[in-house]
């Protein structure tokens, strides 16, 4: 243990604790800006400077470990003045338009500037006019707001291994941009939005499409319907001051009806359908040897984009099942429209997703128009929903609970856990086990695939055969897993895994790029816990037991993997190599 003093208060912390973390032990909050709990300290901004033993040298608290006998001063006249100068310098480079910025009220720089009461008239302003990048339709980059903290670079390069963004040039000309100044759409970007989730300012934000929805809601020719993704229900509360993991499902149904949606569906329902299709796929390949193993999940559009660009040799392994978002869209415009006698041309399907890539998924291939129309018209993120709710004049938190619309609204525990890493795998195993053995798993909780470890492995005994599964989240964790499979293939050995789940975002969808700001592992855990609780609270916890799903197949799709199911609920992938290997 290390013993030292901070602001003349004694602290005792394990070796290796940074001064920043140690200070919290004595309720001292050293301000930071470039530091993020998810990322390694780069020591770029210099806001966290402190002094030791009153010396002249100022050290950065975020990356310096506390040592025995240190006497740290975190705030004195000098230190605060240097911090203020640093902030003034950052602001001298930053556009002044807070009032019309998407981060207004939620911006880390704005908060620091307000806390420090910055008045920076003395310093010259240098803001370079640069056109924003809107090429992806999912993410918008406003380069003028970038404060070069480096978070997005670390996220895109180290955390996600995508390498769409980098720093170019140096010194005063340093800027963040896709390499070679190509557009984001031309770059390796997979639209996961993790950059926007970690950006401290309004430099990288989701493409806000709320205006489109307002207009649709007021369009008498449109019948607006909506679906809510699994993880949105346990995160949207954070935008209203509730703890992460608070399950607001029924309030959301209520709020969405108030907004004017004619029908409120739950993506979890489609998650159950996805499981029925995918588990059936698995049985085909595993039990009947028809198709490639391992089977790899495909409901994450960032992951499929990443795969098509970098790992297209695995195309045959991908589940052809669409994502729940797309399944719900096509079913709404066919099954639901038919049943209720609504002209599908009038249906306007909105999806509320944790994810910026879902915007990209809407037009991914022509199969996204399987209903004869655009299956899902627009996808917005949790953050956009929060803004809509705040605009709407609804007292969201005091609303009475409501129910979802039947036919496409009921869900099982298996459907709701899609939002956490390992959730798809767990849900699929529950149903696949039943399909293979005709029996229910003794314990429906597959602990081996839960949690925040980058790669999780587990084995499920199905009829005496061990089924090996792997779950990876955060795209940087994918390469290792796939390489193990490749090596086994090359050596002619049996595949190390039969079933692989990949989620692009660390933590899974609860850590999605479109979720409320301030994500870290603690929050990921709490958000996931909310979903697992939702699962436990459900009477029915296996997708194939969902009565509405059973009805869907009986009355519409016939059976899993039927021709009709293939036509409506499945898709294809194309190799779009970025680098040659």
């Amino acid at each position, binding site marked *: 243990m290390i013993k030292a003093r901070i602001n003349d208060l004694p602290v005792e912390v394990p070796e290796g604790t940074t001064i920043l973390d140690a200070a919290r032990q004595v309720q001292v909050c050293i301000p930071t800006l470039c530091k993020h709990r998810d990322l390694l300290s780069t020591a770029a901004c210099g806001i966290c400077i402190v002094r030791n033993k009153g010396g002249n040298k100022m050290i950065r608290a975020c990356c310096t470990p506390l040592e025995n006998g240190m006497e740290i001063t975190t705030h004195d006249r000098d230190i605060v003045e240097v911090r203020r100068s640093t902030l003034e310098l950052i602001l001298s480079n930053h556009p002044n338009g807070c009032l019309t910025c998407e981060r207004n009220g939620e911006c880390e720089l704005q908060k620091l500037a307000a806390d420090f009461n910055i008045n920076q008239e003395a310093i010259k302003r240098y803001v370079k006019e640069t056109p924003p990048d809107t090429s992806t339709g999912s993410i918008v980059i406003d380069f003028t707001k970038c404060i070069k903290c480096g978070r997005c670079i670390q996220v895109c*390069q180290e955390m996600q291994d995508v*390498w769409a*963004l*980098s720093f*170019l*040039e*140096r010194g005063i000309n340093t800027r963040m941009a896709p*390499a*070679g100044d190509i557009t984001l759409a031309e770059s390796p970007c997979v639209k996961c939005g993790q950059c926007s989730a970690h950006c401290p300012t309004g430099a990288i934000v989701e493409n806000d499409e709320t205006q489109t929805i307002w207009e649709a809601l007021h369009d008498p020719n449109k019948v607006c319907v909506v679906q809510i993704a699994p993880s949105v229900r346990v995160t949207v509360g954070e935008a209203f001051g509730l703890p992460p993991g608070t399950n607001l499902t029924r309030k959301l149904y209520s709020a969405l009806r108030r907004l004017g949606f004619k029908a409120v569906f739950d993506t979890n329902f489609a998650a159950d359908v996805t499981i029925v299709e995918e588990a059936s796929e698995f049985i085909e390949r595993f039990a009947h040897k028809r198709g490639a193993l391992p089977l790899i999940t495909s409901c994450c559009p960032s992951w499929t984009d990443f795969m098509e660009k970098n790992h297209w040799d695995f195309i045959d392994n991908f589940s052809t099942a669409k994502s729940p978002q797309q399944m719900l869209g096509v079913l709404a415009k066919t099954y639901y429209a038919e049943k209720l006698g609504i002209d599908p041309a009038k249906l306007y399907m909105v999806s509320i997703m944790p994810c910026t890539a879902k915007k990209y998924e809407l037009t991914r291939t022509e199969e996204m128009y399987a209903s004869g129309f655009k299956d899902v018209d627009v996808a917005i993120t949790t953050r956009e929903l929060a803004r809509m709710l705040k605009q709407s004049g609804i007292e969201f938190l005091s609303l009475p609970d409501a129910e979802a619309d039947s036919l496409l609204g009921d869900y099982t525990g298996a459907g709701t856990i899609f939002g956490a890493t390992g959730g798809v795998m767990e849900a699929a195993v529950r149903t696949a086990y039943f399909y293979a053995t005709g029996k229910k798993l003794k314990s429906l909780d597959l602990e081996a695939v839960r949690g925040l470890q980058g790669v999780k492995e587990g084995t499920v005994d199905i009829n005496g055969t061990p089924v090996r599964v792997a779950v990876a989240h955060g795209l940087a964790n994918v390469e290792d897993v796939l390489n193990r499979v490749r090596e086994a293939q090359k050596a002619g050995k049996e595949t190390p895994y039969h079933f692989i789940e990949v989620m692009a975002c660390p933590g899974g969808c609860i850590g999605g790029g479109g979720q409320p700001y301030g994500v870290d592992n603690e929050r990921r855990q709490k958000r996931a816990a909310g979903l697992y609780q939702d699962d436990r609270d459900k009477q029915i916890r296996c997708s194939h037991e969902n009565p509405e799903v059973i009805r869907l197949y009986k009355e519409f799709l016939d059976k899993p993997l039927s021709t009709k199911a293939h036509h409506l609920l499945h898709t294809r992938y194309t190799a779009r190599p970025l*680098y040659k290997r």
Partner: protein
Amino acid sequence: MISNLNHDLNGTVAVTTAPAPAAHPAGRAAAITRIVEKHGRRSSRLVPILQEVQEEFRYLPPDALALVAEKLNVAPARVFGVATFYAHFAIKPKGKHLVRLCDGTACHVKDSIPILDAIRRRLGVDARHPTTPDLMFTVETVACLGACGLAPVVVVDDQVHGAMTPAKGVALVESMIAKEAAP
């Protein structure tokens, strides 16, 4: 040993290596592959690799950078990030004649800047656009060539000229323009 010293008949020190003409794109791939292979395809060798690629093509064409990324199996983002960081690497083509003005301290206190201004004025270039539109001249400053006894110093291609003045600098450039124009 004399033979090891790199100098030509005029008795000048080679400040830059003689540039080769930019190769045809197909030839480019071959040259880049050769260079990357020579360095064992290790991404840690990115800086020396880029130096050799630049020597080969006289600057770093963006498609060459993308090729380097491919051969090294790293993201273009990494290669561009490194290539744009170091002042030595030129992403834009340089002129046929490189005019480098030393702005080290010794030359500076002996009034190197008026010489720079005069030469720039004569060629119609500036700091942001150092190359003439006809790609004939590039004018840049360099910090200290170690010829401080001769300050202020201008190096044109490989030739070091000492004790320069604005008038001499302009005259030097004009003699080169004349040489180029002559049939």
